[in-house]
């Protein structure tokens, strides 16, 4: 189960310039990953928020699956 939430830096200037999304995979903290998106690129329309979110989810999923596979392999040793 992957959840995505917005991370605020606490600095309004930074939050205006960058949108930070954090993807977490339940039970695998090592797979937690942040994607920092230039808001100017979102505003220009070249980047789409939905695509960025999907890319983050794919990254987290890929890392988590690799991590879990390694853990499974270690259990069999």
């Amino acid at each position, binding site marked *: 189960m992957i959840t995505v939430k917005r991370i605020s830096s606490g600095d309004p200037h930074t939050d205006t310039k*960058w949108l930070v999304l954090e993807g977490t995979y339940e039970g695998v*903290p090592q797979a937690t990953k*942040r*994607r*920092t998106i230039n808001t100017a*690129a979102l505003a220009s329309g070249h*980047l789409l928020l939905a695509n960025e979110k999907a*890319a983050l989810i794919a*990254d987290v999923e890929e890392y988590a699956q690799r991590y879990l596979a390694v853990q499974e392999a270690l259990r069999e040793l």
Partner: protein
Amino acid sequence: MTDLMKTPYPRFGPGPVQGPQLEQTFARLYREVLARQDIRYPNNDFNAGLVANGLGGITLGNQALPLGRSAGIPAITQKISDQGTASDQRFLPQVSAGNVLSVQSTVPLSATADSVHATIAIASHTVQYGYGQSAYNSGTITGLPTSTLHYVYASDPHFLGGAVTYLATTNPQTVVADNGNYYVGSIMTPVSASTASITGATSANPIVFQTGSAHGFNTNDQVQLASLPGDFGTHLNGQTETITKIDATHFSIPVDGSAFSAYTSGGTATRQTTGTSGGGGAGGGGSGGPIR
């Protein structure tokens, strides 16, 4: 805590005071009031911050707090050796220690670009210090300008590692403007992926290509050729060549094509790196070490 200003006076009834009664009063005064102000008494009122050490001196406890601070003096001075040196790098601001007096486990930065923007990927990595390691999760920064030197950093003032927010700046001073910043490294983002359609080519030395519209390339850019016809395709498709710009729609490559059959139609040239991008370019590695 005993407050002498608020300690009630001993009370005596009218008439002469008996010796034992006076003695009992003084005993209570000494043992229950004054002794609590004596730092040699283990249960004195200040023992959490001040105790006698039996050597004619005192020892500061964890509740000996510098004015305006929440950490005790023992906890703070624990980070300084008897010789006055810092016990480990965590005593230094992150910006002075991270990736400066430490070593990353790998070069964590790589970059890619599409036709408009670049993306920097930060691989998961650890940073080795004298006291141990900080492990950082991977991350991504996207929507960045292409062909630009970026300095990547994250705020981690307490050396905790984990999932941090990676940021990129073109101004290295931004990185060192905050004591809590961990400097990850610098990387040149690749040039934008730019493809030009080829509409003509000379069977000559050097070969001169013509493009259907302005190619946007510059001398010393490297372009990859594809889908060329005939002898041009046989010898050049898939090859990356360094070009010389002739004008907005013509460029040459240092290849002798005088024996090639005449060009017919088709072909593309896609820029891979620019002549001025140095060690960056597609997939170029980041560089650690101090900011320069």
